């Protein structure tokens, strides 16, 4: 175990009910390029975190909520690899 970094992936996405202008622009561009059947695109962020030891779950949730995402318009999911 020692020396192997623990990986935590965080995906931050705009909330379903919040307008995602970037996603709309990308969707339209995809349609223009011939990908006719595309229904919707949402653009988010993917963060790869490496830890020496597994972080405290509550602390991880806290930083995801307060720093990595903006809870007003975004939601996040955490995946511990």
């Amino acid at each position: 175990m020692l020396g192997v970094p623990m990986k935590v992936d965080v995906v931050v996405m705009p909330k379903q009910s919040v307008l995602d202008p970037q996603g709309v622009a990308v969707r339209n561009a995809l349609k223009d390029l011939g990908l006719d059947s595309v229904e919707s695109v949402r653009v988010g962020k993917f963060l790869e975190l490496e830890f020496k030891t597994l972080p405290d779950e509550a602390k991880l949730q806290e930083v995801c909520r307060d720093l990595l995402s903006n809870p007003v318009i975004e939601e996040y999911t955490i995946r511990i690899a």
Partner: protein
Amino acid sequence: MKIAVVQFPGSNCDQDCLRALTDGLHLPAEYVWHKQTSLSGFDAVVLPGGFSYGDYLRCGAIARFSPIMRAVVRSAKEGMPVIGLCNGFQILCEAGLLPGALIRNQSLRFVCQSIWLRVETGDTPFTANLQGRRVLKMPIAHGEGSYFVDERSLETLESKNQVVFRYVDETGDVTAGSNPNGSIHNIAGICNEARNVLGMMPHPDRAWDRKLGSEDGKLIFGSLAETLEPVVSR
């Protein structure tokens, strides 16, 4: 002679560019809508600044697939002078007409200020009148203007004299302090190997009237016009 100013959705310097050409230099110029597919009848093309497609995904990434861009690429390969300013530079890089990419400013913030830039080569249609490493003053305004290119391409750019403008201080020296965005080698503008495609982050379209604090932008458009004129009158 006639110069095209391409309008992408989200271009916001299209009107400034047209005015710089028509009011500032009395050159014939017209808008070309991004959905058009031909540049016939034009002798040069300007891709103006702005936020084409909102700069969503990456600056210039969506605009480069606009119908007009096929004509721009074709014309560029045939030798037509193409100048991309700010967002136009970003589009030219995305379209592969120029090497490298414009990435987020080192400060991570948008930067709008007046800068000095040195003309590194007079061997382009845009700088033919600007021999002797002249120092020009004009504004910049961008969030993603830090020029980046891999080391090998950088060597090529430098050795083939494709760096057209560099950020300098008022006396013309390349310094860290005069680099507003973290561009590699203080690069503010480059041309392609054939030297007919220029991309630059600074705005000559905002420096063509004494009232605006600088008229240096006229020198670039003026060089272009004088290069074109003999071709057209031939």
